């Protein structure tokens, strides 16, 4: 498969520009680049969901034009989306045959075919289980099976590991190797370098919408790859000196919240949640999504009303306070879903700057909106937080995700918050903005801000937090010291396999393993203190920074082995 000169002008995000990509049959080809670099757009073009403005797609030497996903499927290209497209109330079998009834019917023939595929690639899919009973990893396997069932020989996986804990990622990679061994081609989209290096045969890097280079995993260190991807020195989420004080800022005590789920069963989504965040402390909350983190945040924000327990902010009981009062009292909120909770997409930036702080200065005076001051302050936020926009009159929807997030961070930080609730603050944000957001959180923390950090990025959690808690099924089941814990250990608590105080175990592991664990996604390699701007061309970045390579030597031997297996 070959893509040449693909250009796509696409609203809001970086356009694809002169993309060249060659994928060899029977390999795992990783496509990596920071968020917003244009990976997903490219894949949508390949899957027929978007039409390129320029450029050609060649499959097996034949030039094709893909107008719809159906065209792509007919040519053996299948896509596993980042967000699963499964009907929860149907069985695996029903989900797989849905829309493909003509292939093997909907009965035993289809079931046999599913079994056959599942066994051939070691997917372990059970056809008659309801999808709603499956975990995330299993659902992903169903998605893969769905694509294979339709006869795909080339699979596109869009950020498949984003929703998985480390153990599940390993299992997924085993599946991918099986697929490869059977002669299938896998295009794997990711911005996590450790993963890319461990599973890919070839790597193509995209930056700012264009392909900036290719790499072979066995000859590349994560650092080189990362620099190719970012074009500059990498940031690290690490927090250095502790600023934790013993003044409690937020105290949550015995919080309990029940909710009725889709089956009408009342469940406790928050059960006996108690914790304290002190001034200058970042409390990181780990957990697989859907274990009550969102509900906890909404309860602290006053958007949900818990049926037991109390919330105290800076000595004042706010358990009954409405959301606006809590915000006025100094809770800053970076919501998990910025489109739903953080922005008015069709409103101009300056109105978005007012959102959530309409009663506070400089946005209003005595009940009236102070448009002039709000605009001026929006200009300031745009400048200070490096929001890339041609002006403050454009709608929030026309900014890319990272710039939207910078605007939100700027807004929340502009009201001297006492407590910042940051839910996935750097999700969908490019590396540059990520570093900035981390810096801002660290900066504010030094000044006595208390932060509740929720993130699916375990490195971010471990790097930024002073204290770690693990949430599982609505309870805080474990705590850990971010200084010693590894993502793998945290991951096992996130799946409920471990609880209590997590101790870092070194004894049972190979000597180099702990070190590997600390930088498993080696893209987040420690930052060199005063690196000037790194030259951007691929050649120069490969040769530069060789002094840092020794930090991740353990990644390479594995890669060589796997590369060997593949060929």
């Amino acid at each position, binding site marked *: 498969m070959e893509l040449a000169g693909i250009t796509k002008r696409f609203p809001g995000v970086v356009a694809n520009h002169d993309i060249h990509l060659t994928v060899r049959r029977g390999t795992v080809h990783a496509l990596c680049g920071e968020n917003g670099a244009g990976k997903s757009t490219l894949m949508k073009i390949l899957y027929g969901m978007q039409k390129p403005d320029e450029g050609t797609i060649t499959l097996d030497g034949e030039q094709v034009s893909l107008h719809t996903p159906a065209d792509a499927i007919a040519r053996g290209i299948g896509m596993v989306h980042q967000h699963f497209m499964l009907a929860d109330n149907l069985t695996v079998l029903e989900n797989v045959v849905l829309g493909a009834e003509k292939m093997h019917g909907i009965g035993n023939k289809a079931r046999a075919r599913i079994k056959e595929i599942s066994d051939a690639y070691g997917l372990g899919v059970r056809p008659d289980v309801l999808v709603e009973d499956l975990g995330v990893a299993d659902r992903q396997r169903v998605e893969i099976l769905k694509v294979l069932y339709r006869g795909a020989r080339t699979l596109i996986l869009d950020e498949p590991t984003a929703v998985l804990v480390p153990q599940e990622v390993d299992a997924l990679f085993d599946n991918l190797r099986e697929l490869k061994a059977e002669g299938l081609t896998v295009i794997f989209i990711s911005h996590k370098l450790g993963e890319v290096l461990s599973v890919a045969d070839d790597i193509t890097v995209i930056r700012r919408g264009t392909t900036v280079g290719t790499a072979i995993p066995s000859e590349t260190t994560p650092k080189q790859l990362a620099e190719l991807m970012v074009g500059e020195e990498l940031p690290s989420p690490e927090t250095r000196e502790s600023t934790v004080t013993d003044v409690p800022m937020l105290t949550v005590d015995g919080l309990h919240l029940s909710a009725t789920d889709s089956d009408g069963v009342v469940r406790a989504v928050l059960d006996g949640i108690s914790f304290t965040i002190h001034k200058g402390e970042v409390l990181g909350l780990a957990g697989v999504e859907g274990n009550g983190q969102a509900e906890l945040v909404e309860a602290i924000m006053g*958007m949900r009303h818990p049926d037991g327990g109390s919330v105290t902010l800076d000595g004042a009981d706010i358990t009954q306070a409405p*959301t*606006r009062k809590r915000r006025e009292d100094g809770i800053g909120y970076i919501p998990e879903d910025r489109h739903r909770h953080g922005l008015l997409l069709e409103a101009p930036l300056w109105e978005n700057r007012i959102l959530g702080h*309409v009663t506070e200065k400089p946005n209003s005076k005595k009940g009236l909106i102070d448009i002039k001051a709000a605009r001026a302050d929006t200009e300031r936020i745009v400048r200070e937080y490096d929001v890339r926009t041609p*002006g403050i009159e454009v709608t929030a929807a*026309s900014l890319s995700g990272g710039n939207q997030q910078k605007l939100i961070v700027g807004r929340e930080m502009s009201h001297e918050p006492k407590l910042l609730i940051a839910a996935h603050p750097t999700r969908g944000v490019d590396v540059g903005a990520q570093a900035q957001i981390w810096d801002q959180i660290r900066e504010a923390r030094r000044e006595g801000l208390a932060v509740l950090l929720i993130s699916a990025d375990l490195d971010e959690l471990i790097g930024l937090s002073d204290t770690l808690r693990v949430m599982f099924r609505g309870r805080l089941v474990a705590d850990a010291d971010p200084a010693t814990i590894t993502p793998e250990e945290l991951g096992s608590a996130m799946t409920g396999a471990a609880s209590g105080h997590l101790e870092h175990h070194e004894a049972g592991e190979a000597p180099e393993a702990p070190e590997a664990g600390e930088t498993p996604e080696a893209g987040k390699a420690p930052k060199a203190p005063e690196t000037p701007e790194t030259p951007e061309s691929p050649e120069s970045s490969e040769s530069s920074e060789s002094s840092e390579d020794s930090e991740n030597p353990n990644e390479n031997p594995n890669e060589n082995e796997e590369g060997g297996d593949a060929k």
Partner: protein
Amino acid sequence: MKKFDKNKLILGLAAPVLAIVTALVITSVIIGVTGKDPFHAYQVMVDFGSKSDSQVWIINKATPYYLSALAVAIGFRMNLFNIGVDGQYRIAAFFAAVVGGSLALPGFIQIPVIILVAMAVGAIWAGIAGLLKVTRNVNEVISTIMLNAIGASIIGYLLQDGRLAEKEGNLIHTPYLPDSAHFFEIPTQPKPIFGFVVIAALAGAAYWFVLNRTRFGFDLRTVGRSESAAQASGVSVKRMIITAMLLSGAMAGLVGMPTLLGVSYNYGTDFPTGIGFTGIAIALLGRNNPIGMALAALLWGFLERTGTQLEFEGYAQEIVGVIQGVIVLCVVIAYEIVRRYGLKAQQRKVGEELAAQARKSDKAEASA
């Protein structure tokens, strides 16, 4: 930044212009199909509509339409479809007429009392729908339309000789308001303009000011744009729904006032109906914008005035109804098209400008 403003203005005007031009084209075809000359019809309409008595008629007709459109627009601005303005203004005017007819106070007290009663009754009637939505999650479209029917029945029951009304010939109506309750008129020739047009203009200004310049208005618009974001931002969405319905109903209460205080001085079986639905069309056509709705209300009045004249010229009078219907359809479609186009165009533009910036900085770095 200036460029964006200009584009915004062009886009803002594009939709109504597009809608009216399309409507004219479609109507011309329809008139043509009936075998008549469409351009002569327009000529007749313009000539007749620009006569001075027509102008007075149009303004007097447009005043309640405008108030009705404001009432609908308050709901629209926060994604509430108050389809019950019709019932609200009628029941409000009815009770205002009853109260007004039974009091004999000096005008400067009498008139405000009548207006306040109307606003209060309208607010209560709309508030029921708000309450049902908040407590029982009843869609406001369903509840307001049912409240229209209930309101009509209540009026029907009370508007009987011996209850709250009296009989005069074939007509049954509430007792006449005392002379002190007659609203002032603007002495124009050949007929006066209702003084209530001033109240309508003030209501329009208040609508603009409250929505665009106050915290409350910001909160209201926030709910309209995104309920989830509004809630996260600290707006109590439920309270806002009730407040907006109350305001919308209070505004609806004003709709019957030009008629009650300026023409009929009572509420009878011949009290005008259907203005609430006209208000929906006008609010749509005027984009919820106070000026836009005023123009739309005048256009509506113009069409109705000149429609009668078309009949004398041998055209079917229904042609005006067709024009109105086609305009509303065109408006809804045109706005959606223009809105989507505008959003896309802006996104593309932002993307291009940023890409250009990035390329420039790339080059700068490369040459450095």
